């Protein structure tokens, strides 16, 4: 009796394993034929979960675009998605599964914590990895060989806040900052830069997941600041913005990119908000074609705060890099990513265009839906061109472009 149930459980686990063997069984071990496998390591559950559904939708759009244009080197692309549970151990085990069981050629979408934990393995296994929303400063100077990103670093995000506030004549800046890596890093950079520029900063930190933030908001405004910086995700950000509106605080509010979403734009006090983001051109063919498909698939426009466009771009980049390298080997593909994404080269705005140009023997420069994707030698977005967005008529609209003032780096 006592041994029956444990062995039942073991048998069940075994059966699970065997059944998935059957599923994966017929794949060739080499990459010479059969599908090309893209891996997506993303937080389907856990703290990042609210941001993931739009990103997955975007990834599907990218894969469909690639396969409709004939695939990579004539082969279909398959996307395998693993949940990293928004935790480090989830990332480690998800990565292990992707690399050893699914035999992925490339990996997209990991978040900051995952990137930091897996960096050494990525380099050792030579798996080209692009991340769409990891701002961690860890990658600022370590990336470029196998690790790349299509989103601005937290340090740039922080500096631009200081710059915009300074240029608007703000002298006293209050900050409400969420106690998580993605929010506190840019805020610290912003504070240091702003103080160096002669301003005064008071910071109030919040813990995401609390039911209300009334006292923190009151504390932030107790010193009568000229402006407020809100560095938080939507979970805490929206309640905070509503509280600000409730109490009638009428100062300009700078928000972190995570808050560039539809729901935030619908808030009654949205006209006080502005945010800075890597410049994306709503006139660009890449953005328009992507936005159209995204709208068709999800019923709503892309939301920069959900990083969906970035998620789309990274998979197109992988496909183009593989086409350029005419190989799926990690080393070859990684060597092409920066070239394919950056000037000089023929400007292309879709996978099909890029593939055609490469076939003609041209160098290409893919401009994506989230930005022009030009990268520096560390695989980080080179363009210090940022766009200041504001809310008009219930939607976020990109406005003036701003070049990052290097003197703020200090």
């Amino acid at each position, binding site marked *: 009796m006592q041994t029956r149930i444990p062995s039942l459980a073991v048998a069940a686990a075994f059966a699970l394993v065997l059944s998935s063997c059957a599923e994966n069984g017929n794949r060739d071990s080499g990459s010479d034929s059969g599908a090309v496998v893209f891996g997506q390591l993303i937080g*389907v*559950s*856990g*703290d990042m*979960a*609210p941001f*993931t*559904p739009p990103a997955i939708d975007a990834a599907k759009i990218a894969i469909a675009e690639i396969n409709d244009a004939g695939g990579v080197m004539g082969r279909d692309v398959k996307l395998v998605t693993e949940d990293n549970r928004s935790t480090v151990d989830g990332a480690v085990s998800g990565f292990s599964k992707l690399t050893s069981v699914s035999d992925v050629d490339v990996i997209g979408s990991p978040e900051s914590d995952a990137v930091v934990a897996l960096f050494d393995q990525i380099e050792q296994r030579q798996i080209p990895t692009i991340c769409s929303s990891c701002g961690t400063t860890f990658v600022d100077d370590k990336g470029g060989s196998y690790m790349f990103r299509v989103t601005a670093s937290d340090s740039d995000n922080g500096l631009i806040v200081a710059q915009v506030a300074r240029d608007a004549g703000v002298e006293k800046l209050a900050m409400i900052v969420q*106690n998580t890596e993605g929010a506190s890093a840019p805020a610290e950079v912003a504070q240091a830069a702003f103080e160096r520029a002669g301003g005064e900063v008071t910071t*109030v*930190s*919040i*813990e995401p*997941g*609390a*039911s*209300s*933030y*009334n*006292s*923190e908001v*009151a*504390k932030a405004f107790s010193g009568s600041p000229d402006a407020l910086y809100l560095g938080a995700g*939507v*979970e*805490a950000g*929206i*309640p905070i913005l*509503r509280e600000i*509106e*409730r*109490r*009638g605080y009428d100062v300009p509010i700078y928000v972190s990119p995570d808050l560039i979403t539809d*729901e935030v734009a619908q808030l*009654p006090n949205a006209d006080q908000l502005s945010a800075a983001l890597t410049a994306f051109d709503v006139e660009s063919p890449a953005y328009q074609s992507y936005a159209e498909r995204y709208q068709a698939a999800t019923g709503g426009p892309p939301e920069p705060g959900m990083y969906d466009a970035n998620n789309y771009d990274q998979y197109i980049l992988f496909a183009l890099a593989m086409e350029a390298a005419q190989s799926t080997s990690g080393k070859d593909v990684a060597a092409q990513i920066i070239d394919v994404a950056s000037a000089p080269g023929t400007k292309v705005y879709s996978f099909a265009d890029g593939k055609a140009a490469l076939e003609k023997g041209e160098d290409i420069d893919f401009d994506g839906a989230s930005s022009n994707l030009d990268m520096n030698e560390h695989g980080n977005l080179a363009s210090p061109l940022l766009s200041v967005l504001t809310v008009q008529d219930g939607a976020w609209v990109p406005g003036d472009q701003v070049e990052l003032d290097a003197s703020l780096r200090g």
Partner: protein
Amino acid sequence: MQNLLFGLLTGSVLAVAASGFALLRNTERFLHIAHGQFMALGALLALVLSPEIGAVAGIAVAVVATAALGVVCGKVLFDPVKHRGGNVLLFTSVGLAFVTYGAMIAIFGTTLRVSEIELGRARDVGPVSVAPGEVVILAITVVVVAGLWLFLGRTAMGRDIRAVASNRELAHVRGVAINRVSTTVWAVSSGLAAVGGIMSGVVGSVTTESGWGYILLVLAAAVLGGIGNILGVIGAALLLGVVMDMSALVIDTSYRPVVAFALLIAVLLVRPQGLFSFHARKEVAA
């Protein structure tokens, strides 16, 4: 002062939820960890239904559905293992918490949801600034607390519940319909969880992750309040809320959760049976 009002707001939402938790603990005698998940479930149900059938109907359906779920769980999951003691019940509740959490992810997906209900613009009323919706929240809490007090104190069922809470075996011997009491308690407790969750959702936001955070504070309030006294738990919840919000005046707000738990530990050291408990339980302290 303003922060006092904030604290009362935070505390009232907590109080509504914690009272349901305490009710269940007193009669069924275990810590229902899944209570936090029920709060999230009630909130999510209301948010998902509201666009279809209107806010009020959405809330009503959510509360009733959660109450019904509670009753079913009570009968199917908890009654059969009742005789095994509080710890088995506790971990069954942990299991239920995991199941509810997984079910919410599967059914609702993980996108963030924000309530449409606005609390309105704040006006200055004397020394404080308060929004109409906030007054409503406080009013609802008062109504719930008063209703609970009347229910437990004045009705026949309430009397039965108190009898079971104080001595289950004796109540059984005296002819109290234990099963009916059990069903009622499960329904009321789960309904209160839903109401608490919905209130929390209106004031803030709700995700599938919210349940794990809710249960931390509910546990703290329940233990702080002590066993045997639901009003005590309500008082403890209000106290926790007030202390957390008032602490923002003097110390860095990143210490806010630390403050709540430090208070809890400090109180338990001085008065191990909880603040408002009048049973000096022998099992509490060595």
